[in-house]
């Protein structure tokens, strides 16, 4: 386990035992059921690096993102930003702190208020943070932001619906950068974009990271994209971290991580392969699983796996895995 005590100086964000439960029902119609969307996740986000999180739909990636930014409160565990626990911040302090930590959302189509022009959307961060601006300053700020993300300043008078998905996502990024944050959470920022646009955005994010010295938490369901873009990769399954790859080239040792990588069709007809299909479906998030969450679908699962939950252990060099029977 990565423990909070061992936080090296280089970590911007340290997450310890983070857990978030959601209850549904309990109203008129349904019995109350509780699920853990994020279950005891510990993680370091090193300064100036890209930390990737992958996993299938519903595994808790977005919930993790929200918890890290304290957009929702954790059921248990802590998130420390630059060494201080966010949970200890007052609402006022938290609002101030938001200047430093921003987010780019999965769906660029709904990330901007449809009634706002791009200019207004870009100025909102300043307004919300009470940064007084003259008209000229405001214009300069908007111009700078919009050019930073490679859009034409002519676009600022448009409404979101007049922009393409890629352009909207750029506006989303510009807006997140307005307050000069040091930490950016990217929640599947290209999931709804075409590949040709996805590549543009990734390119832009890389450039911005270098220029502005940003730290990223990059969330995606596309393992090959994550392995291309990230320095470290966390593989999540059903709210848990299954494996942490210390670098992009490391070979996954967890069966799930392996299957995830294997399911990715390689774009090369010369290298067609038969996929080792995973049996079964992802269990319901409401199900209480005593052992390894992946046991039911795992080719190597033993009784031990079903009985006892493997803890995340370091295989050396920061490669961590929660598995009783890792692949070799």
């Amino acid at each position, binding site marked *: 386990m990565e423990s909070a005590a061992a936080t090296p100086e280089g970590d911007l964000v340290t997450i310890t035992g983070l857990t978030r439960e959601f209850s549904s029902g309990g109203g008129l119609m349904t019995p109350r059921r509780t699920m853990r969307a994020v279950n005891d996740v510990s993680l370091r986000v090193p300064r100036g690096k890209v930390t990737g999180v992958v996993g299938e739909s519903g595994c808790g990636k977005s919930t993790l993102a929200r918890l890290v930014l304290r*957009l929702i409160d954790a059921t248990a565990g802590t998130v420390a930003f630059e060494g201080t626990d966010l949970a200890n911040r007052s609402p006022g302090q938290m*609002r101030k702190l938001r200047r430093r930590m921003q987010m780019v*959302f999965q769906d660029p189509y709904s990330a901007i208020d449809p009634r706002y022009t791009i200019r207004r959307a870009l100025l909102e961060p300043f307004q919300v943070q009470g940064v007084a601006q003259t008209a000229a300053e405001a214009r300069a700020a908007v111009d700078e932001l919009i050019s930073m993300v490679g859009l034409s300043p002519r676009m600022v008078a448009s409404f979101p619906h007049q922009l393409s998905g890629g352009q909207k996502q750029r506006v989303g990024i510009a807006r997140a950068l307005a307050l000069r944050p040091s930490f950016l959470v990217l929640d599947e920022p290209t999931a709804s974009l075409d590949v040709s646009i996805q590549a543009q955005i990734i390119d832009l994010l890389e450039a911005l990271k270098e220029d502005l010295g940003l730290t990223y938490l990059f969330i995606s369901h596309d393992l090959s994209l994550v392995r291309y873009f990230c320095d470290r990769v966390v593989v999540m399954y059903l709210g848990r971290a299954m494996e942490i790859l210390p670098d992009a080239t490391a070979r996954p040792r967890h069966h799930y991580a392996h299957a995830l990588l294997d399911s990715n069709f390689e774009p090369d007809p010369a290298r067609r392969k038969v996929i080792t299909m995973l049996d079964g479906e992802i269990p319901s998030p409401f199900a209480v699983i005593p052992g390894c969450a992946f046991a039911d679908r795992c080719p190597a699962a033993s009784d031990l796996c079903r009985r006892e939950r493997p803890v995340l252990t370091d295989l050396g060099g920061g490669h961590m895995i929660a598995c009783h029977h890792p692949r070799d």
Partner: protein
Amino acid sequence: MAALDPIKTAIRSPRGGASAAVLVLVVACAVFAPLLAPYAYDIQNLPAANTEPGGTHWMGTDEFGRDLFSRIIYGARTSLTVAVSAISISVAAGLTLGAMAGYFGGAFDRAVTAVVDLTWSFPEILIALILIAIIGPGLQSTMVAISIAYLAQFTRLTRAQIMALKNETYVEATTNLGAGHFHIIFRHLLPNALTPVIVAGMLATGDAIILEATLGFFGLGAQPPTPSWGAMMSSGTAQIFIAPWIIIFPGLAIAMTVIAINLFGDALIEALDIRNRLRSS
């Protein structure tokens, strides 16, 4: 301005255009009544009572010999004022209540929802009659009664809107910028929730005109000699056999206006593409 675009689109559709024309006409009657009406609405001429429609009195006269055409024109004023003000009050209150319930949720929301659901399922006419019994007759109380009778509808709608909008990414994005509740509600949620509520309000205005007419049947609403279409119809029932025009013309005015409101509302709904959002209540 972009906000007017849907209205333009609505007017361009044939039904939208025709109904908009009717509405403009009705509103013009209400606003310019003193200029348009050939006679004063309250000048009685008893010997000329119940005159058939004809040259001097295009729509005939009523049981007091008053010019029906002039009364219809002035009636637009009362009927529209009552309906529009009642619905405006209702919309304003509904927006406030609904926004608070939808945004903050919790016990307040549950209380509001329970009361609203229940009143919503009582007929407006009953609610209005009971309220008038409590607050007394008169035009103002009629307005208040009508507005309370419709309050549930707008509260529900606003609440549903806010609940849906609350989950929009841009709200989360704005929160993430460090925005407070006030900013979120007034800069993002309400402006986006407004359109369907206003359109629903507009459609309800049609119903309010009919409700006012029905209250007139029970002798409530506009006080004589102030003409309102509803009051005119209800006092006309007694003349139905000898001077049917006294009831027919205001009836037509109501039908025409209500249909126009509905058709225009439909055209607007289409232009704004908010059918789903209206249904969400």
